[in-house]
């Protein structure tokens, strides 16, 4: 009895889980493996359509004789680069109609013209003609002939499924593409974006956690940048920072803080001198990082605030009795309570910033030294139209991600052992 029940339970479980699992597998897991495949192929954006034989049918009358018609088929190979093998052609005709002087590649039987056109090279074109006549000398209705569409078929390789592989893409990724700078930019962006968001998150959480009026409103407002659509926010920032008529530059010039407007999103480097040391700051990248911090510190804030509110108030009261200063309270009570959540946040944000595409794409499009790995996937795959290369960059991203995760789980495991 219980055995059949558990069998039933299993069966139900699989029926409930399967649709979701299949969907996620098809859309999320399959592409990750497909990337591996594509990254070893020399394939461009224009190659991804499977070539098809196509025909356009034109019907013409021949002089006065209405029992005869000429049909022109404009045949072509839809692909500009691939051949189609063994093209078969088929067209149906009404009763009593038969072709005259049929092409040698074709046969006429049971009201059908069947042709075997053999192989079509890339860009192949032909105007193929059939003359038809009514066997009884009656008028042939043009409309009926026109409404019948020819059927074509042929074998073509799906360029995605061929088995010629190359290592060229990976060679290009590592050697031709300024890979080191790409990687450095990505890490610079990821690291500072993450750390900045966490620091601002701690500050904001610390503020809101105090007894101030309207702190629920404050919590809501602080989350605005995170819930707003990235397109709207990125374009607002672009306008705000615009060097010609952007509000920020206009304000700074107006109050004589700077003399010339600064192109915050379009200038790769800015030379700063602090204490006599001159150094170059990656200006556009820094601006993008600030946008990133602005948009994602709310998340860190939300998590840290939740943790702060769970700290028992008695701890602070006890510290008060012992005569601890506010800074001591923060260092000895608050900080130890939030280190765990901070390390989790750091890892999650690190991985997500590492993959960030939209924000940079919308602000700078990857120009002025803001090209990170995800931006490069898009540029290779869609701007340069080299799908194989884009996939190779994706694979590099996946590999790096996997190694982050392994490190992360190792660290978490250690932490669990210590406790």
């Amino acid at each position: 009895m219980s055995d059949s029940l558990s069998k039933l339970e299993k069966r139900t479980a699989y029926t409930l889980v399967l649709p979701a699992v299949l969907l996620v597998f098809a859309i999320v897991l399959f592409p990750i493996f497909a990337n591996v495949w594509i990254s070893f192929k020399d394939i461009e954006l224009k190659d991804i359509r499977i070539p098809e034989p196509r025909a356009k049918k034109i019907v013409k009358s021949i002089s006065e004789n209405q029992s005869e018609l000429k049909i022109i088929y404009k045949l072509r190979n839809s692909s500009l680069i691939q051949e189609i093998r063994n093209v078969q052609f088929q067209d149906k005709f009404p009763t009593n109609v038969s072709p005259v002087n049929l092409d040698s590649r074709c046969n006429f039987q049971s009201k059908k013209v069947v042709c075997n056109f053999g192989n079509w090279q890339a860009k192949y074109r032909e105007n193929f003609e059939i003359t038809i006549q009514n066997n009884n000398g009656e008028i042939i209705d043009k409309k009926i002939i026109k409404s019948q569409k020819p059927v074509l078929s042929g074998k073509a390789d799906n360029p995605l499924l061929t088995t010629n592989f190359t290592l060229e893409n990976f060679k290009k990724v590592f050697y031709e593409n300024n890979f080191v700078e790409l990687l450095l930019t990505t890490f610079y962006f990821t690291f500072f974006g993450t750390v900045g968001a966490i620091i601002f998150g701690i500050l904001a959480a610390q503020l809101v956690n105090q007894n101030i009026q309207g702190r629920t409103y404050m919590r809501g407002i602080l989350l605005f940048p995170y819930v707003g659509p990235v397109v709207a926010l990125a374009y607002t920032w672009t306008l705000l920072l615009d060097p010609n008529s952007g509000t920020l530059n206009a304000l700074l010039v107006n109050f004589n803080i700077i003399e010339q407007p600064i192109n915050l999103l379009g200038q790769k480097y800015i030379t700063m001198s602090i204490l006599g040391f001159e150094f170059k700051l990656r200006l556009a990248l820094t601006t993008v990082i600030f946008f990133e911090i602005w948009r994602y510190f709310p998340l860190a804030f939300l998590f840290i605030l939740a943790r702060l509110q769970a700290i028992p108030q008695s701890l602070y009261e006890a510290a008060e009795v012992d005569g601890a200063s506010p800074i001591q309270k923060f260092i000895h009570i608050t900080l130890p309570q939030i280190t765990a959540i901070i390390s989790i946040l750091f890892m999650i944000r690190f991985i997500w910033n590492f993959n960030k595409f939209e924000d940079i794409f919308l602000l700078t499009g990857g120009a002025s030294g803001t090209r990170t790995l995800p931006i490069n996937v898009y540029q290779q795959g869609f701007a340069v139209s080299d799908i194989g290369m884009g996939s190779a960059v994706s694979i590099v991203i996946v590999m790096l991600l996997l190694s982050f995760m392994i490190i992360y789980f190792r660290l978490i495991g250690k932490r669990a052992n210590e406790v």
Partner: protein
Amino acid sequence: MKFKSLAIFLIVSSFFLTCILSIWKIMATLQGLSFTNLNITPVFLIGILLSLTFVLIGNKLNNLIKILLLSFIFSISYFYLNETSPYWYIFGVFLITLFFTNKLKKYNMQSLKEDFISEKIIFDFITLFGIVFFAFVILFPFYIMLVTSFKTQIALLVNPLDFSLDFTKSLTELFKSYFVIFETYNFGRYILISSAVSIGTVIVTLLFAIPAAYAVARLNFFGKNFLSTSILIIYMFPAIVLVIPLYTVFSQLGLRNSIFGLLIVYTATTLPVAIYMLQGYFKSIPKEIEDAGIMDGQNWFGIILKIIIPLSLPAIASVALYVFMIAWNEFLFSLMFLDSPKSFTLSRAIQYLSGDAETPRQYLMAGSVIVTLPVLFIFIYFEKYLVSGLTAGSVKE
């Protein structure tokens, strides 16, 4: 010791006052007032004088009279220090000073002798300053977005600092950008598409996620543990690595430029989060309630429909809102999959608009306001649900 804390008190409080007054001045400048100097030093100095007189007076005067009097004197002296300014501006200064002096009221010569008072002063004012700072930094871009949509390109090029709204103009004139983007740029259609995709995604996601989450939470089957851990790992993988294979496959299947294609992708990418959030909630429902259902002869389907769903409406609401927000804001896939303006979502439409350098910025901002407002409204209205959704689903964006 007392002198040190007094000095710190004066400097910190006056610094705070200077900061809010500067922000007020910047906001006034954006209304078209032609200030060219923030006057930080003089304001800072009279701020110090204000705080000093405040603690010196102490309890000799009624508090209300004291703050009104001091604020009034301060505003007058501020008026003389500054370039000519309208009365509403000075009135704003008066109100800010009132707020400030009211904050000062817990300090007097006595309290400055307490332990750690300098640290406490610094903490107090940093808190105040931080709140003003965060609120300003966050709301300012939203403010610019909104007011730009009411201006014209020419007016902004002439004076990029004048965001004042001319209410003498007729309403149609004021909302012109909105009329234009609806009439010429077809935004009505994009709103419909965006809503259809987002609501569709919510429905389909829930249809797939509720049964799966129930199975993970309650039933025993082979591979259950593997499934629940892989959920977490799957949503660490970013959209950008999925884009190329999906693009090629969707091109071959003819799913690009279709709402259906977008719906599938959005559903699949939000499913792991939805399952993760729901199964956590389902586990918290006492099993006895279900046992009663089994006794009544319900099958699994009936249990989910009649017991689990009604009991977990709050969790389902937060998943739904969270998924809606993700789908509404999504940009990467709509950029990749939609080429034809017939099938654009709002985000994609705005990006398309911006691709044309000729598009006046007020149209761009009007579009941005349209795409932002629904999410902000939903967020404000359902904040409680969304926040719990955000915290649970935050592993994902």
